[in-house]
C-alpha cells in the first residue's frame, strides 16, 4: 500500500514536471507545476518532513505559483489568443539534459553514500523552530533582510514610471 502510494506520487511528480517543460500552452504548464509541487510535498512527507511539506504547499503553491500565474496573465494581451510559447534548440536541450542526467545517475550509483538512519522525530515543527532561533539565527535574520530587499526591489522595478 505504501509502495503503491509512493509510486503514484513519484509518477505524478515526474509526469507533471515533464508537462511543465513540454506543454504547448503556458497556462497548462503552470497548472502542471501545481501537481509537481504537490508531488514534491508528498515526497517530503515520505521523508518525515511534515512541516516542510506544509511550508512547500503554503509558499510554493499559495505564493510562488499564484505569482507565476499573475505574471502569465500580465504579460499577455487578452486579445492575443496565443498564450503559447515557442521552444528552440530542442535537440541541444535534450542532449545537454540527458548527458547531465546520465552523469548524475552514474555518480549517484557509484558513490558509497554514508547512510545513517535518523530517528523518526515525533514532531518536526518545534525542532525546526529551536534550530532557527538558536543555531541558525544569523541566516534567519539575513533571510528576513533578503525578503525585505526583494519586496522593495520588486515594487520599485514593477511600478510605472511617472
Amino acid at each position, binding site marked *: 500500500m505504501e*509502495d503503491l502510494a509512493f509510486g503514484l506520487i513519484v509518477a505524478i511528480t515526474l509526469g507533471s514536471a515533464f508537462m511543465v*517543460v513540454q506543454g504547448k500552452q503556458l497556462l497548462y504548464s503552470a497548472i502542471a507545476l501545481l501537481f509537481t509541487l504537490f508531488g514534491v510535498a508528498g515526497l517530503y512527507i515520505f521523508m518525515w518532513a511534515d512541516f516542510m511539506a506544509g511550508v512547500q504547499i503554503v509558499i510554493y503553491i499559495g505564493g510562488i505559483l499564484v505569482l507565476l500565474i499573475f505574471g502569465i496573465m500580465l504579460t499577455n494581451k487578452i486579445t492575443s489568443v496565443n498564450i503559447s510559447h515557442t521552444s528552440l534548440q530542442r535537440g541541444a536541450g535534450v542532449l545537454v539534459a540527458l548527458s547531465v542526467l546520465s552523469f548524475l545517475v552514474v555518480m549517484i550509483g557509484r558513490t558509497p553514500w554514508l547512510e545513517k538512519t535518523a530517528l523518526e522525530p515525533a514532531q518536526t515543527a518545534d525542532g525546526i523552530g529551536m*534550530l532557527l532561533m538558536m543555531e541558525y539565527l544569523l541566516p534567519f535574520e539575513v533571510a528576513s533582510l533578503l525578503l525585505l530587499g526583494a519586496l522593495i526591489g520588486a515594487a520599485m522595478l514593477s511600478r510605472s514610471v511617472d
Partner: protein
Amino acid sequence: MDSLQTYLFISAILFSLGLYGVITRRNGIAVLMGIELILNSANINFIAFARFGGMNLSGQVFALFVIIMAAAEAAVALAIIINIFNNLQTVNIDEAQQLKL
C-alpha cells in the same frame, strides 16, 4: 523505496527536466518555471540527506532557506519580466538583449 538513492534519482530526473526547460523555453516565465523545478530538486536532496544521511533537522532548515530564497527570486524575476514586457511588448528573452532602450 526507503533508500537514499531512490530520492537522489528522483531529484536528478527533476533537475534534468528543469535544465531542459531552462535551455529550450523562450518565454521568460517558462524559464522561471524550469528554475523552480531545479530548486525543488535541490530541496528533495536536502531533505533526503536530512532523513538518510543523519543530518536530522538541519537539512530541513536548509530546505526552508532555499524556499525563502526561491520566493524572493520569483518576485524579483517576475518584476523584471513584467518590466521587459512593458518596454518591448514581448517576454521572449532572446529579444531582450540591450541593457538600455
